[in-house]
């Protein structure tokens, strides 16, 4: 197969179905789209997206998860709306006590109000999740997209680099990198997640760019002399971005859970940051005496992660025509 432009290789999204596309159908589609007018190629993504949107609007899973996420975003921005207390005000005299008037969730091992801390923890967890996902998605799709688009040496080098980062176990990397961090902000944690998380998006982006690139309308645009940047922005990106969005939404939930695991291992966020991860890991040692202190932040975390994963799932189903 001398002209084979790509090869199926280790865990790298190879070309996809483009090469096997039925010639007649592609032709028909190409004609339909009118490759020359420039607006043509964006018809297809628009229809894909609007199809998906129609699908989503009718999906209860999507509606529920969106509402949960909306609620989370609101309390992240404005936690005092529903919690009047101070999450850092803790009185050891109340340690491990159950719920009391005005303190519906009881107190944790330090005598802090669990309800207030759970509400205030949303901000950190959502920040970590959203920022890490954004970072991973941007870095991953840029690198993966470039590798996929330019191919050749670029592809080989970038793919090998991706493999290098992929080969390092994530928790292990977190333990090593974050144990030296002294800052008490969320940025080192986010930075670490981006550093070790981008390969997953990069591979997906690469695969879908390669797929999109093979589409005939893209080939046609190239034949008509479209510049690289125009091809990337107008033709390829709209087609390649869907899988990235899907995986990123699901990954978002797992980053929030990862933050808790890092806290459990002693390298997560640091006080006075209030986060579910910190609370879960400190409550996990008291679980026999004060299970409520573990229950609420874990519950909040689970619901949040669940909401993002369900959202991602719903989006995926909507974007995957085969499951219709």
């Amino acid at each position, binding site marked *: *197969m001398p002209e*084979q432009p790509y*090869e*199926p*290789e*280790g*865990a790298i999204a190879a070309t996809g179905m483009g090469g096997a596309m039925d010639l007649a159908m592609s032709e028909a589609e190409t004609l339909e789209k009118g490759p020359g007018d420039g607006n043509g190629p964006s018809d297809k993504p628009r229809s894909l997206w609007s199809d998906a949107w129609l699908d989503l609007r009718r999906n209860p899973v999507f509606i529920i998860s969106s509402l949960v996420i909306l609620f989370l975003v609101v309390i992240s921005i404005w936690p005092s709306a529903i919690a009047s207390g101070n999450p850092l005000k803790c009185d050891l005299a109340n340690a491990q006590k159950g719920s009391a008037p005005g303190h519906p969730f009881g107190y944790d091992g330090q005598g802090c109000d669990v309800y207030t801390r759970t509400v205030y923890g949303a901000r950190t967890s959502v920040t970590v999740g959203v920022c890490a996902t954004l970072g991973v998605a941007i870095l991953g799709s840029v690198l993966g997209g470039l590798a996929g688009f330019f191919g050749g040496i670029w592809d*080989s080098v970038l793919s*090998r*680099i991706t*493999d*290098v*980062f*992929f*080969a*390092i*176990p*994530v*928790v*292990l*990397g977190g*333990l*090593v*990198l974050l*144990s*030296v961090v002294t800052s008490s902000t969320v940025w080192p944690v986010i930075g670490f997640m981006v550093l070790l998380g981008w390969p997953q998006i990069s591979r997906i982006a690469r695969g879908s760019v390669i797929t999109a690139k093979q589409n005939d309308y893209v080939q046609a645009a190239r034949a008509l002399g479209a510049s690289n940047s125009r091809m990337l922005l107008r033709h390829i990106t709209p087609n390649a971005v869907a899988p990235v969005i899907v995986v990123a939404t699901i990954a978002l*939930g*797992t980053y929030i*859970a990862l933050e*808790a*695991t890092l806290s*459990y*291992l002693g390298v997560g966020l640091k006080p006075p940051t209030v986060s579910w991860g910190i609370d*879960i*890991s400190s409550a*996990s040692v008291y*679980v*026999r005496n004060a299970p409520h202190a*573990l229950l609420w932040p*874990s519950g909040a*975390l*689970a*619901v*949040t*992660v*669940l909401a993002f*994963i*369900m959202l991602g799932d719903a989006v995926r189903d909507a974007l995957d025509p*085969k*499951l219709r």
Partner: protein
Amino acid sequence: MGRYVIRRLLQMIPVFIGATLLIFLMVNVMGDPIAGLCGDRQCDPATAAQLRREFGLDKPVWQQYLTYMGNVFTGDFGTAFNGQKVTELMSTAFPVTIRLTIVAVLFEIVIGITLGVVTGLRRGKPIDTAVLLVTLVVISVPTFVTGLLLQLLLGVEWGWIKPSVSTDANFDELIVPGLVLASVSLAYVTRLTRTSIAENRRSDYVRTAVAKGLPRRRVITRHLLRNSLIPVVTFIGTDVGALMGGAIVTERIFNIHGVGYQLYQGILRQNTQTVVGFVTVLVLVFLVANLLVDLLYAVLDPRIRYA
């Protein structure tokens, strides 16, 4: 095929070097490990300097790395601070972790695929929704919470299992830890199988098989499942490497003296030799597993050819 394998093996070399260098640098960033060896007091400077010299820590990083890799190729993975050869640590840790991984993979195969088939065939029915919810919950609760709760309930409150694993780490002791380790992947396998089954269910060959009047059972096991397993097998293949290196939390909770534990200890003590040694082997496992999975494609699906 042969050419393809050789090219893949060659491509592994830069990845292997890059990954080991990366972990080497990362561990190096953690700083000087000697201070931690002297407990709550200062090492006397002469001994500290000498220890540094003996472990080669007084050399520049690139030189340390070259020396280390040179030794690795001769089979010498260095010595941990407690005087044990790293290869010795590996020979005790890897069998335990491999057993744990086998248990975890078995769970993924047996439970994951069964649930996946059931839900895939009954898409949209209550059982599908229920399993879907359970798998989502499993994914969204951090492993350490699942682990600690199971240990407490099954091990202490109900007394069904021993809460910790003995040093022998036999298979029967690893059932619950294996389940905890597998839980997240298990949920993925379930969902993957479900999607795949649901997709293939409407394919022509299934319709044909049904039309031929084949019993439902035969259609499912012989035709539907067989073809739906490809992505699942792929997933499990690549998961093996991640399971082996990702067991840090599970191994800590259940007192399993495997790879995760050694890595954790190595990191706490900033023992470059241990950490880099174990990660080197894990990187190899990862690369080989990836290659095998890609080759499996060709075995599983005759349409695929490697050039």
